[in-house]
């Protein structure tokens, strides 16, 4: 692991260009790994006389031209529809955000920046307080702002070995307001040869207005491009190959579970899920892109977010198996559940429901959680919790049916009456039927009390 100087970068660059030239691909042909190395905001920031970003962007365009890489004209990418291109683009971003970024560190700070779609996380990554990784997710992947960028900074040398040894490159997509140039969002303070060992599949696309765009990029001016001149500039990076780390990381991040305070890939994924619908409508409205296609684009993101959340729920349930659970005693499980609910709202309720309905795990914990769902004070998820509890009245487990009825009792919502009536009708455990009946009567009394007096 070593630092790389600007001079070294330039030398390597020239050598690489020369090498590419001998490959018959043209003097300006570059590979993305090289670009990732040459460019980068870090270098630019540190050496103002090297206009790495604009420089590399131009070379990218030239290279794309020379090597016949796809260019985007409005609506088409080499015959492929725009939505197909965007799907690919999105998937690659999922790869980037979902797989490349792994943290084992302790969260030092997390804040939602003023811009609602930004997330900044500073994660400690090592024993020394100064060893940290700063991850800035700007634009929050919300295409509504036509811009998203992922910026990663390694401020110290390892222990961030995984990031340094795998490909580390920047990713920035700018569709309109160019805030950071392609590749300009990423800077590397450390660099290691293995960076170059993984080829990063390039994708460079720009519209017919590219000259204007490039000029703007070169000067870092913001420009507005009409929708019919949709322009996309993109450099993707290849997947990060550290599958073996996943379990360890999940254990270390989720094991000491305080979800609300953890910034993990889970949060990043979920933030995308949160904004997915908004994006969908925006794209549909702005560009008239088929909603089904866009929905399909978002599916992998939703799935990843859901899977990650389900993983968290599973951990919570497992922790409950080792806890002496009593409904009326607040313990680690209920605190974790509250944190989950606070962080992920209705999605957490859905994940809990899904976990319970799989029938996985301890039914005692599941019963505890159902009762907790009825008791927790969270108006935003009230309707979802009602639905989950009503659904669980039909559970195969009498313990869960009982817990669902108790949850509905605590929820104290007369809308549960019809579900309870049905449940009482079908309940074959006499004792349980009687208890459900008591809940039913209680809710009916509540409804009568709430009804306005008849004159």
């Amino acid at each position, binding site marked *: 692991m070593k630092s790389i100087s600007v001079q070294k970068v330039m030398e390597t660059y020239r050598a690489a260009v020369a090498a590419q030239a001998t490959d018959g691909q043209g003097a300006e042909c570059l590979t993305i790994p090289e670009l990732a190395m040459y460019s980068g905001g870090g270098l630019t920031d540190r050496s103002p006389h090297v206009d790495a970003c604009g420089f590399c962007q131009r070379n990218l365009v030239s290279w794309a031209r020379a090597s016949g890489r796809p260019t985007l004209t409005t609506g088409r990418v080499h015959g492929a529809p725009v939505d197909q291109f965007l799907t690919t683009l999105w998937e690659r971003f999922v790869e980037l955000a979902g797989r490349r970024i792994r943290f084992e560190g302790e969260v030092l700070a997390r804040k939602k920046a003023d811009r609602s779609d930004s997330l900044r996380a500073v994660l400690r990554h090592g024993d020394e307080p100064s060893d940290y990784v700063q991850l800035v997710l700007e634009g929050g992947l919300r295409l509504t702002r036509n811009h998203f960028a992922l910026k990663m900074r390694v401020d110290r040398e390892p222990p961030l070995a995984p990031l340094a040894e795998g490909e580390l490159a920047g990713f920035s997509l700018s569709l309109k307001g160019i805030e950071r140039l392609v590749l300009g969002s990423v800077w590397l303070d450390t660099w290691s040869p293995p960076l170059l060992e993984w080829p990063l599949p390039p994708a460079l696309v720009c519209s017919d207005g590219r000259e204007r765009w490039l000029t703007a990029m070169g000067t870092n001016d913001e420009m507005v491009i009409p929708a019919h001149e949709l322009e996309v500039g993109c450099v993707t990076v290849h997947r990060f190959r550290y599958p073996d780390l996943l379990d360890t990381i999940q254990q270390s991040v989720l094991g000491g579970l305080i979800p609300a305070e953890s910034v993990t890939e889970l949060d990043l994924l979920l933030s995308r899920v949160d904004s997915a619908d908004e994006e969908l409508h925006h794209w549909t409205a702005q560009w008239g892109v088929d909603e089904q296609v866009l929905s399909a684009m978002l599916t992998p993101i939703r799935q990843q977010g859901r899977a990650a959340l389900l993983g968290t729920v599973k951990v919570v349930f497992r922790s409950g198996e080792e806890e002496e659970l009593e409904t*009326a005693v607040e313990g680690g499980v209920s605190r974790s559940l509250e944190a989950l609910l606070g962080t992920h709202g209705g999605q957490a309720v859905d994940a809990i429901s899904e976990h319970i309905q799989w029938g996985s795990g301890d039914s005692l914990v599941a019963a505890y959680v159902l009762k907790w769902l009825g008791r927790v004070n969270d108006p935003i998820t009230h309707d979802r919790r009602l639905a989950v509890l009503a659904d669980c009245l039909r559970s195969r487990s009498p313990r869960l049916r009982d817990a669902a009825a108790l949850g509905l009792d605590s929820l104290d919502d007369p809308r549960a009456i019809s579900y309870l009536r049905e449940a009482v009708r079908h309940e074959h455990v006499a004792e349980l039927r009687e208890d459900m009946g008591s809940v039913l009567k209680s809710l009916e009394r509540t409804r009568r009390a709430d009804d306005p007096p008849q004159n």
Partner: protein
Amino acid sequence: MILRKIDKPNWYLPDGWECGDAPGDVLRDLCPKGGRLSVWIVEDDASNLGRLLAALGSTRGNIDHIDYVLFSFDVLRQTDIVDEKADGGSHDSGANARWHHDLIDLSVTRVAALAAALAALGDKSRVRCSYREVAEHLAAAVDEGCIQLEKLNPAVRAKLASITGERGL
């Protein structure tokens, strides 16, 4: 009569089981500590039942339902179990002193016998006090000075205020 707090679903008989048998889960409710099992004595006219339920609810972090089983001293005789007066751990010191007992010297055989005997009593011996009823008993116990409000968990106090307020108690 003797009251023991339980969790009713532990006692549900799985389909096809003989009435009078008991699922092993009932042992969760009868698990002794140091060979002792906490129980409460209910007066013959059940006049102290509400106060006992309030006492049971007083140490919790939330107002929640209470499941319990009621059985006679005959069951103790049948199962060769002895009880002795012991101070209870609730926030009702009067109830602790007057009505709390421990079943003592509990062996595996005696616990199993107790479980079987209680199961044989059938589901009518098992009772659920809803969280609303618990709240009412708690409110009454506080009003009567049996339980000091400040000893209750803040969440219980808040819930108590909301429930009793709604009902004009």
